[in-house]
């Protein structure tokens, strides 16, 4: 996977952001607590509910096919206290998983 590639969410795959949970996760991050285990966005496929955490949910929402992976990283950098290399690595790994699941497709 390259930073120049673009992905979009698979059309018709049901998902929903849990806004209250996302607010709580943001508040936890702001307070310096680890919120990576908190599900803030649900993807439902074949009756199976998968929870994405805050970072995963934000990447998911940005996968609309209009920006490449590098642009997604740039957009998220100011919002998460993390080094660029680490965020890039996490985003690439996460997106590779989404591609393998068939949840995002090349745009």
């Amino acid at each position, binding site marked *: 996977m390259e930073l120049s590639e673009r992905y979009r969410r698979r059309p*018709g795959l*049901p*998902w*929903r952001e*849990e*806004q*209250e*949970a996302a607010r709580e996760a943001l508040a936890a991050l702001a307070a310096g607590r680890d919120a990576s285990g908190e*599900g803030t966005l*649900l993807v*439902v496929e*074949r*009756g*199976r*509910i998968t929870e994405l955490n805050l970072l995963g949910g934000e990447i998911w929402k940005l996968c609309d096919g209009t920006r490449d992976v590098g642009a997604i990283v740039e957009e998220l950098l100011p919002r998460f206290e993390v080094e660029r290399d680490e965020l890039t690595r996490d985003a690439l790994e996460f997106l590779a998983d989404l591609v393998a699941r068939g949840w995002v497709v090349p745009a």
Partner: protein
Amino acid sequence: MSAPGKIYSAPLLVNWSLNYSCNFSCEHCYSRFEKADELPAGQVLEAGRRLAQAGVLFANFGGGEPLLRRDLLAVSKELTALGLSLSLNSNGWLLDEAAATGLRDAGFVSIGLSLDSHRPEVHDRFRNRTGSFDRVVAAAGHLVRAGVKLTISTVVCRINHRELTPLLELAKRLGAAQVYLHNFKCSGKGLEHRFELDLEPLEWRDFYREALGFAGNPDWPEISFDDPILASLGARDAEHGIPGSTCGKLSLHLRPNGDITPCGFIPLVLGNILRDDLRTLWRESPVLESMRHKTAQGKCAACGHYAACLGGCTARAFAVSGDLNAPDPHCWENPCG
């Protein structure tokens, strides 16, 4: 008191009885004695908008026979455009080639057809309609040819519990992607015919043991159960991680007039989709609260499976005892407890 598992901000699924009218009179029907005005198309759409705004992802039409509603396809197309993922259950009688393509074009992701036996005469007798087997088999063909995902819906009861393999073979031949094995509910006509149609607890155990042998096998259609008493066989639907009944935790039910109940088999009205805020009801309803925090009673109190099954199907317990916390009458554990 039991822990409910995670409760999300709104239901994910709404089982929606658009109408109670039906062209069949099946032996087990939960809704045959139900009466409720049907919402006109405009109010169905408003209800759909409210569901979508609340974050509901899936709506499954039942009833009644949904295809009796002449505005079904037009309304469904608009509900799909709102972002709802639609499915429906039908007896198949009215599902000809044109209906199949219409359902596909309206955006339905799956259609469930009621089929209760591989033997035509058994199915017809259960559904009280001569020729219904042939019509539902034909309907399955129309759906598969139209490219619609086909689910076979079977009400497991005394007429079919020992004939699962031939039923699954038929479902496979018909091109079904999924077979949904509905556990018998003692509601409506189901309660009236409970003693002739329902199985004894140990028969349920034996049936599920056999059925679980087909689950997860790619040679067969996907098997779905959604019965919390499977927990005592170590096989509860693990994917959603919700112990006990999912009604009131992941799903709700709408009656034809928009009244909201926890599920189609629990006649406790929580509010109305056109009048009340769904997320507020979901969060604050005392009925849902008691369903999410059940208290073990009777034989459940000492049962090691309670944390996973939470007393089994709340609707069945309520139907036969009037108590949401009563043990599921299908449960085979601790029979003398």
